[in-house]
């Protein structure tokens, strides 16, 4: 398999959402190595991380996005592809730091103290990672002090706060206030989301943005890029 064929196969596996050789895509005839194995094979063949990302992973995700927009693909398809790309990026990450590729930024996300719901948070993580962001998941029921400490020490570009409950969403405001008190508010963009949260609430607590869902989070962050 030459370089072009290998990248094309990688792209197709992204489109099919096959992370590993054990995964089923949409086309049952497509078997063999998945995105992770092909990414490693490409590196072994001395294909640059830049080409692997731009011609394989990103090109594949663009097709996935088009298929999602035309309703050929559903959210599970988008997530399968994004998760595959996300894990492939983990393989490429050590090499990216040595290259001249600019990172899209570090995004930290947490379900706030008192709330253990994490489906939305996990989906946001997968989609943002698949979109090229470095994502750190701080977990669920995360104390406000721990969030502030993370921002102080790791200096993320973006902080995502998630809550499902009308009671726990108020903690998001506590986090914003704690960041202000620590003199860190201007160092990070704060994004909020979750079933109980709204644009109005986001403005009220002084967050930078409200994200309706994972796709909206990608749009908002990509907006900051430009």
């Amino acid at each position, binding site marked *: 398999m030459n370089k072009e064929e290998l990248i094309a196969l990688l792209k197709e596996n992204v489109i099919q*959402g096959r992370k590993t050789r054990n*995964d*089923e895509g*949409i086309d049952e005839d497509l078997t063999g190595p998945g995105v992770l194995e092909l990414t490693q094979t490409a590196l072994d063949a001395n294909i640059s991380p830049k080409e692997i990302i731009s011609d394989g992973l990103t090109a594949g995700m663009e097709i996935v996005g088009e298929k999602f927009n035309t309703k050929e693909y*559903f*959210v*599970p*398809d988008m*997530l*399968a592809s994004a*998760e595959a790309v996300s894990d492939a990026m983990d393989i490429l990450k050590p090499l990216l730091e040595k290259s001249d590729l600019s990172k899209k930024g570090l995004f930290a996300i947490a379900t706030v103290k008192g709330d253990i719901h*994490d*489906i939305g948070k*996990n*989906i946001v*993580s*997968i989609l943002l990672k698949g979109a090229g962001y470095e994502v750190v*998941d701080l977990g669920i029921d995360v104390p406000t002090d721990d969030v502030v400490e993370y921002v102080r020490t790791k200096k993320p570009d973006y902080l995502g706060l998630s809550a499902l409950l009308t009671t726990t969403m108020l903690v998001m405001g506590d986090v914003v206030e704690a960041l202000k008190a620590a003199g860190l508010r201007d160092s990070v963009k704060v994004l909020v989301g979750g079933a109980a949260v709204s644009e109005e609430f986001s403005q009220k607590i002084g967050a930078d943005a409200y994200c309706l869902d994972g796709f909206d989070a990608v749009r908002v962050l990509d907006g900051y890029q430009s």
Partner: protein
Amino acid sequence: MDILTDPGLICFNEEAAGIFSDNGADVQPIIALAPPGWKVRIPARLVNSALESAPKTVTLGARNPDNALFMDGDEPRVYFISGSECNIWLEPSFEKFVSKQDSTREIRVPSFHTRRGTVNDLCNSARVFEQLDTVDGIIRNVNIQDDDITADNKDVNKYFACLNNSTKHVMAGLTKGDQLDNVINMAEIIAGGETALRKNPIISFITCLVKSPLQFVDDTTATYLKIARRGMPVVVSSSPQAGTTAPPSEAGILAQINAEVLAGITLGQLVNPGTPVLYGTVPVRARMDTLGDSYGAVETSQYNVDCSQLARYYHLPNYSTAGVSDAKIPSHQSAVERIFSDILVTLSGPQYLHCAFGLLDCNSTFSLLQAVIDDAHFRMLRWFLQQPEITDEDIEKATGHIRAVSETPQKLYIKYVRKLLRSGGISPLYPFEGADMADDAFCLAHQRTEELLTQPVNHIDNEVTDRLYNEIPGLLHRLKGYKGEI
């Protein structure tokens, strides 16, 4: 059973009275009646004998044999059928309304206009029914009232309009009993001969020979006797109205409708044992404001559930009723009433659920738009009716997924959904869901209806059609070349 002897039935058909008398029923002329009638008291042994000879399984064939309907009185497998015969056709039009407060806000809202049904409406209905996946068979839904439709040519044209535009089973009632031979001859030509029609009865008949309460009607009874002698599948239907033509109590209307249907079935089996028959029940409650039929009343659904259990008691396939609304137009009321009865009656397990598509205004108005919306609802209902299948392999696979996902950071099963999505294992989204906050169901259903009307039609082939026009009197020539031929 007691009702069949006390008070018995009044019979206005002399031949039927004679048949009952010849077979041992107590038949006495009623001197005071005009037209002449007879009091018929049917002994239980005649009814029991009829219940033994009536087939427990009935097949209704179709031009496309894949569309044939197989009914077993002991098996609650439900077919969804159109009908009944509406005088009024409801035509929608969509106007755009702009908000006075915000001129950028626009909505499209349907207006509905009524007119008399035509044979072209019936053709269009059959074409759409052919395309709708959940329509299992056709009962002619429109009373054709064109100027060139007469009492003599109405029956052949209503059957032909349906048969020429759909490959599904076609059932109707006859306007004139003397047209039976023409209609059956037409069906034999289409099916490929007398034997072929017997094996694949592409048409069948509805008869309401017993008018509530407990009266054999002269002309329909005569028609029924002819149908039974020809051995064609036939529905013996009764439509009592609780509060007017039947007792207002649940027990009362059930006892009466059962007596009326059993009396009809008994007569048919006496003239031709083995005649394929459906236990036909259209019980309704009276509206207290008009004394018209209230199909949207909760009691109407309850009566139909009861009747399907009665039919099962006799091991006979049940022709049942659900999905009709009292509302005059597609609306919130029509959705609530029809879905309530659709779900309730379907789950009682009648074999042949008619009136299920597009009927409004207490069964007097038909809306093609509503029929297309109903199809979406029956898709949901049919999904629910699927028999659950859980195999050892499924259990092993599911537990494997549980173990695998518990080891992942995201704890999501999403990737296992994808194959099900493509294999039809996930129920689809509601097809007429509006974008964002808009309620576009009617607009989207109308678009779908228009699309369906542009689909090619699998007409009866030209050679057979020519033969029909040569041999069957009264067929309208404008139906022969109906648009959309392939």
